[in-house]
């Protein structure tokens, strides 16, 4: 694993041009806010982990940024413009649990869903669309499984197919909800390789992440959330025992945190 780039080499992002800038976002289910008045400025061309304890609003933050969940208050801008104008530049990989695995669809069909904006209602699926979808499957190492019904794939394989669907969109900003949850080691490696290659192409990656021990190896910047924003910035300055302890509210033992947040 390559060492994380030093913070200084990352371009500072002007909020007005950030791939994803969120201001004053509040989301509530009923009267209980799940995300309260959160500001977030995602750095262009970096890989950002959103971390926080269970129920801290990590997934909700992503969903609200995408307008899947309607926020109570707040503004979201994407590359300096309103979300509605720039939604085509975002690819989203939802949590695996959100899908009916018995649905009659094969891996290649799932990837073709990523071309919906190109295909629209009636345009025919042509050979070059299929080829593009197959290339995306190959990029996540799933080319041999194109004609499998998705329920017949393992959890890790399903996650890779979803990543391929996001790749098919040729987006600039990739938002992933717990991409490593419940996947095998081989898949985790395959996914992180693809994400790093996206970063090398200048794309921006934001992932909800639950495994504190890999934050340092995988990501450049962190965003800590526990209903409110608890910290944001390069790993070196923002991912410290103090910020993590504050975010997790004493749910982790001190020794554990020190170990997780220090360089190995």
């Amino acid at each position, binding site marked *: 694993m390559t060492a994380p780039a030093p913070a200084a080499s990352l371009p500072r992002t002007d909020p007005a041009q950030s791939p994803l800038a969120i201001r004053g976002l509040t989301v509530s289910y009923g009267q209980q806010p799940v995300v309260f008045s959160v500001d977030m400025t995602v750095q262009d061309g970096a890989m950002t982990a959103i971390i926080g304890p269970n129920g801290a609003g990590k997934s909700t933050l992503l969903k609200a940024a*995408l307008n*899947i969940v309607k926020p109570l208050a707040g503004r979201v801008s994407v590359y300096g413009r309103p979300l509605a104008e720039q939604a085509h530049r975002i690819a989203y990989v939802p949590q695996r649990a*959100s899908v009916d695995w018995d*649905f*009659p*669809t094969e891996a290649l069909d799932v990837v073709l869903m990523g071309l919906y904006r190109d295909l629209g209602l009636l345009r025919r699926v042509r050979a070059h669309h299929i080829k593009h979808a197959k290339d995306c499957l190959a990029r996540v190492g799933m080319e041999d499984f194109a004609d499998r019904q998705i329920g017949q794939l393992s959890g890790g394989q399903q996650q890779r197919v979803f990543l391929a669907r996001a790749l098919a969109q040729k987006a600039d900003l990739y938002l992933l909800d717990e991409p490593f949850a419940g996947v095998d080691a081989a898949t985790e490696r395959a996914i992180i390789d693809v994400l790093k290659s996206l970063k090398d192409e200048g794309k921006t990656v934001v992932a909800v992440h639950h495994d504190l021990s890999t934050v340092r190896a995988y990501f450049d910047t962190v965003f800590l959330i526990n209903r409110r924003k608890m910290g944001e910035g390069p790993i070196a300055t923002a991912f410290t025992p103090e910020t993590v302890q504050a975010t997790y509210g004493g749910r982790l033992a001190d020794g554990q945190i020190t170990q997780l947040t220090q360089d190995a």
Partner: protein
Amino acid sequence: MLAQALLLQLGYNATLVALGSAALGLAAGATGTFLFLRKRALVADAVSHATLPGLALAFMLMVALGGDGRSLAGLMAGSALSAWLGLLSVSWLTRHTRLAEDAAIGAVLSVFFGFGIVLLTVVQTLSAGRQAGLESFLLGSTAGMLFSDALLIASGGLAVLACALALRRPLLLVAFDSGYAETQGINVHRMDLAIMTLVMAITVVGLKVVGLILIVALLIIPAATARFWSNRADRVVLLAGLFGGLSGYIGAAISATAPGLPTGPIIVLVSFAFFVASLLLAPGRGLLSAALRHRAYQRQVHLRQGLLALAQSHPVYEARTRRILRRAGLMRADGVPTSSGHSHAAAALRDENRWQALRSSAHLSELSARDDGLTLILDVLTPDQIAELDNRISAQPKVVS
């Protein structure tokens, strides 16, 4: 008689009914698939029951305006209006109250239907002589169908079908993964309203033939039937259209062979027959094929376990394992392996040992996920990799004692 009916030789009315029913079945089957895949089948039930008050009110209105109240187009318009109201009620209750959708469906369905029955009774007492058999819309009735009725039913059904097919991509995307659909610029709520509107249109179009109580069967059973035959949504849609169309056609033909046979219920029974046949016989998802697959798998497991026991000179106790080994000519009745049994057993043990060695190999251990006890390692590794494993095995003490 049935053959004549199927060949459209039972006269003008029977032919009209058969063709109208086929078009309706085709449209209902294909459109219903989107609903089925969205898992909202019961909303269709609420919508169809909600047609009844509108039907009765439309009849009253037409009579009050001096007509005879039996115009199919007028009745359809009235039932569409009240079905739309029912649909909006379910949608509103689900979105703006804490009621779950099933509770909202139950409430709307029973209230609208109850109100409709009251109105129907009023119609019967008010104009006993002219009540025109409105209750035939409960279960459908094709006696005395006019050419214009059949044309209305067929063209209405096909128009709905065209709309559903035009919207197939967003509808399927919403059904599969609504959150993702939203990020693709699809308004999920609007798509849900669209599919329900199409379903409502099918219900209204099908009132005359199948009736409002049974129309939900024509929307759902063909989709459930088609699901047995394909793992791809677009094919499920086409197959459901085919099953629905055939059910409509055959059901109408059967009901034409004897006077008094109700068309709607027979169409539903025919589509159920397709469902049962598919449930039993479809390859892959059918019960028969699943049972055969299970048996074949079980046999393989027993064979493998038996061979491994033979290779290690353990006695084979399980009766089924002994039977399978003997039938395959691998073991004699007294439990002694035959010569072919010896060689197969040795091969099985070699395979098992190679898998064992693979697990402790640094760069191959990832492949151990492919080990399900039956897959031959020869199918997973290259000859070079196997040679490498064999070297490891001969270098160590024996893995299996």
